[in-house]
């Protein structure tokens, strides 16, 4: 699908301009958004030390012609001029930014599109032509048009034009469409700068303010009193801050547990606040009825689907914009209920992106239908089918007489065990559990009911039990671009002990949860649970010594929800794109255009992600591809060569090995 994008850029910018810069681990490219984000993210065409990834410009893939090395990226992305603009807007700093953004991710994965060849053709006629065609475009065509517009813009920027000039330029070309495209583009910019991301609390954003929002916004820091007050004014949920906060975690929100629920329940019947389905999901998050990355994400998407179904566009408003604002307000409500997971952030981006890209020509009902089917497809392809693929991969790693250890209760891992059991494999499961949630007990119950032999223990005993374990299967909330696994708290300990005992650790994670951010420790971003949960001791009243803990100001209880697992503890990452080693190269295939060309984004452990075009040579065993990419180190371009083991039948990469430095 990337093929589609390339040609226009070339046309627009005179052939050299990188039209899109895709970052990080993106499952599938969303043509529209991908390109932009990284530009802001990389203040660096010039300086090689930036931690951010600037993939070298993607060169258009030659048509299915025989592959050759001519595919290499040619020039560094022109990010710097863009950055300047961004910085010049620094003073306007409002915190109603886009939400999901605290986990702003690379473009939401796009859904595979069938007719790529057509696209390449349509692309050639972009700009003006598109105006004429607008009324009845196929999806692919629409996208092509947007691509071309974007390309035009990028070109303009390249040339050093001011954004306004560019905008006007664009608008002369094509009625209104460019503007929407542009706003989305700017948002992306806000969201991508890596250590940053952006504010969580969002509200509606007045259209004219949009333009000034170019500064990369930092994630909401809850120890910033000023912004917290501002955010509070907008919030639907009234909540009081918990007592005895831990100093180290002042930057994260923590509210007294249980204070919000009654208040929210009483508001349930007020009609104008929220769509009821969204409201319901929010309450379920709050009460903990829905937990787990996939479950929360699906629940949210279904609620949005329903909300979109019931949506009616107010007069004199533009659907794209109004609906985006609506969704943003829903999202900020959900955040108040519980901070978003990365997977939710990613899917919100996907949805918003879809909304912004709706052609104006679509009628309201058509647009709604299209969005709903997009949501359905997202759920199906990125979550349900992805899980199935992961299961099918992971099951091959289970042999008879294995002892498999898992921690907590990850839905994918459970599916893997179920499937392996159905296949008749004889294995034993060790369920390691931790306080205060005891998720493992629920998993244990389900596994035992299916007749799988289980051993249950708590996390402290993990070194005791690890002697007999042959594989560790873990779930993840997200995988960050340095290969770090962000997951439920305790995962790092389990992985560490397994590593110390030489037991392979397999992390199962759907690719839509991948995120390009880098996090060095578990403190800078995390989620705080209810501290009272720690003071409650199960079963034995005589053991609870901390009942009135909040009365003493020297005593704090800390209930962390997540931690990060360094990539060197992880032996293998199982994703819907195959099984990958996280340490050296977390690799995700953006899309495979045909059998001969792969476009993949590679993130090295310490280097930025790159885009590279692969030429695939078929060999006896599956297909072997050589991939060349530029990695920038200390301002010197260094070419790295990889051997990529790619299986066309499964459309997945099953191994990547760095060959040698050139």
């Amino acid at each position, binding site marked *: 699908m990337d093929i589609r994008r390339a040609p226009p850029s070339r046309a627009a910018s005179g052939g050299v301009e990188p039209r899109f810069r895709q970052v990080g681990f993106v499952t599938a490219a969303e043509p529209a958004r991908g390109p932009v984000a990284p530009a802001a993210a990389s203040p660096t065409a010039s300086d090689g030390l930036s931690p951010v990834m600037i993939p070298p410009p993607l060169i258009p893939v030659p048509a299915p012609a025989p592959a050759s090395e001519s595919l290499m990226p040619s020039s560094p992305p022109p990010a710097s001029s863009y950055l300047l603009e961004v910085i010049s807007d620094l003073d306007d700093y409002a915190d109603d930014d886009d939400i999901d953004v605290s986990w702003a991710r690379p473009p939401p994965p796009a859904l595979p599109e069938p007719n790529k060849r057509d696209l390449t053709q349509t692309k050639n006629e972009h700009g003006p032509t598109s105006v004429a065609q607008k009324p009845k475009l196929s999806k692919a065509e629409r996208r092509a048009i947007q691509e071309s517009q974007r390309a035009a813009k990028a070109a303009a920027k390249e040339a050093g034009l001011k954004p306004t000039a560019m905008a006007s330029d664009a608008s002369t070309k094509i009625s209104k469409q460019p503007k929407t495209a542009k706003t989305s583009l700017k948002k992306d910019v806000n969201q991508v700068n890596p250590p940053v991301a952006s504010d969580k609390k969002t509200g509606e954003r007045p259209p004219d303010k949009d333009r000034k929002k170019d500064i990369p916004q930092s994630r909401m820091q809850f120890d910033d009193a000023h912004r917290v007050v501002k955010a509070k004014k907008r919030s639907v949920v009234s909540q009081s801050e918990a007592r005895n906060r831990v100093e180290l975690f002042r930057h994260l929100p923590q509210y007294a547990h249980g204070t919000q629920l009654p208040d929210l329940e009483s508001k349930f019947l007020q009609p104008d606040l929220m769509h009821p389905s969204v409201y319901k999901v929010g309450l379920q998050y709050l009460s903990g009825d829905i937990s787990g990355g996939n479950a929360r994400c699906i629940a949210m998407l279904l609620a949005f689907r329903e909300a979109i179904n019931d949506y009616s566009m107010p007069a004199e408003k533009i659907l794209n914009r109004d609906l985006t604002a609506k969704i943003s307000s829903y999202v900020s409500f959900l955040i108040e209920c519980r901070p978003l997971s990365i997977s939710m952030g990613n899917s919100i981006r996907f949805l918003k992106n879809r909304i912004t890209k709706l052609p104006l020509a679509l009628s309201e009902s058509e647009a709604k239908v299209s969005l709903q089917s997009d949501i359905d497809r997202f759920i199906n392809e990125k979550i349900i089918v992805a899980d199935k693929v992961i299961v099918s991969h992971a099951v091959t790693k289970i042999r008879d007489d294995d002892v498999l250890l898992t921690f907590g209760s990850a839905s994918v891992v459970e599916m893997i065990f179920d499937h392996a059991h159905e296949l008749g494999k004889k294995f034993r499961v060790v369920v390691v559990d931790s306080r205060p949630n005891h998720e493992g007990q629920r998993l244990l119950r389900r596994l035992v009911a299916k007749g799988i032999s289980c051993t249950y223990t708590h996390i402290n005993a993990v*070194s005791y039990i690890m002697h007999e374990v042959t594989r560790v299967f873990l779930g993840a909330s997200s995988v960050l671009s340095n290969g770090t696994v962000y997951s439920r708290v305790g995962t790092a300990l389990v992985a560490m002990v397994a590593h110390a005992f030489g037991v392979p650790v397999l992390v199962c994670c759907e690719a839509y949860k991948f995120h390009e951010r880098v996090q060095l420790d578990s403190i800078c971003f995390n989620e705080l649970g209810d501290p009272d949960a720690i003071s409650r001791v199960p079963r034995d009243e005589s053991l609870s010594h901390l009942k009135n803990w909040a009365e003493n100001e020297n*005593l704090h209880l800390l209930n962390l929800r997540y931690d990060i697992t360094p990539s060197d503890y992880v032996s293998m990452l199982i994703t819907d794109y195959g099984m990958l080693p996280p340490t050296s190269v977390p690799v995700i295939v953006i899309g495979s255009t045909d059998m001969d060309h792969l476009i993949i984004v590679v993130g090295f452990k310490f280097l930025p992600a790159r885009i590279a075009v692969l030429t695939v040579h078929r060999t006896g065993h599956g297909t072997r591809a050589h991939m060349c990419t530029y990695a920038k180190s200390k301002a010197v371009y260094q070419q790295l060569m990889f051997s990529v083991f790619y299986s066309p039948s499964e459309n997945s990469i099953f191994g990547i090995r760095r060959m040698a430095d050139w």
Partner: protein
Amino acid sequence: MPDVQPLVSDFVLKLKRRKVEGSHAVARQTAELLRSVVSQHRMGSSANQAAALADAVRVVGEQLIAANPIELAVGNIVRRVLHIIKEEDISSTAVGIEGLSVTVDSDDEYDSEHDDRPALSAAVLAAHARNALRAPSLQTLLEDIPVSPAISRTASSTGDSDGKSKSAGDKSSTRKLKHDVITAIGDLIDEIDSCYEPISEQAVELIHQNEVILTLGRSRTVKEFLYAAKEKKRSFRVFVAEGAPRYQGHVLAKELVEKGVQTTVITDSAVFAMISRVNMVIVGAHAIMANGGVIAPVGMNMVALAAQRHAVPFVVVAGSHKLCPLYPHNPEVLLNELKSPSDLLDFGEFSDCMNFSTQDGSPLLNVVNPTFDYVPPKLVSLFITDT
């Protein structure tokens, strides 16, 4: 002997039923029991009273050790008492020798020809006695302990020479030996009780202003150690991992807060997340083995691994009654104890699952609830003991 038998069997029963747990309590009670064993011991008129006394102690000690093999403190205390008997015997002999150096010299030949032991010159004996009179250092303890069979031999041979050189059945010297041993055991008990003081004296050297300490579970030694630092006006923060499923960390947190120490309770699973901000890990131990490995409350190994990963010093504080001269073999299994599953799972909730069984009769659901962890020596940065 009959007088102490009920006491011994009572204590054996307590150990077996795990009514007495924890190194400190066990060590103290063992020492007290042995003191009464010694005091009840009827000194025969035979030449080698010391050997007879040592045998009596050893018999009781073996029963106690068998009652709860993982309470290594029992064995440690029995060895210490045997050591005391030997020391007292040697010192009394040495006193005798000084008076009768000529006799001893003349005895030498006799000794060396009928005994496999190397000849004891008066000088050697005196050196040995001096050694014995010094407070037992860690080194001498560890060096001497494996020699326990030799103790009896030393005792018997010196007893022989004693007997030869003096008139047989010198009641006063026997009574003196017994009395000395009892006083020494009393000192040992005092030492066990007060082992926290010399340890916590070192707190100020290790804990500085604004440090962040992490500990797991509760150990009285750790508590005293932190108290001592607090009393020296050091302000520091403590993360306490709660130590599920016994939640001793909650108790420690409560105690620390009472002294005004800034305390944060975290779940055990959050240890890895927090350890990057910790300056030092200070933990207690159940026993310290001869190779430097530590038998510690469950969960300690993962804390030690996490500390190593982040280059955080891992400090073990333990009284000398926890120093054990044994070498661990497969300590995770052999020096461990599995507790009731009810700590982890509600029987009510899972009782039906527990009944499930596969064709071969093994249950479908196992619950593992070990008490101890073994921390290999390479993960420990520092031991702090009272000697």
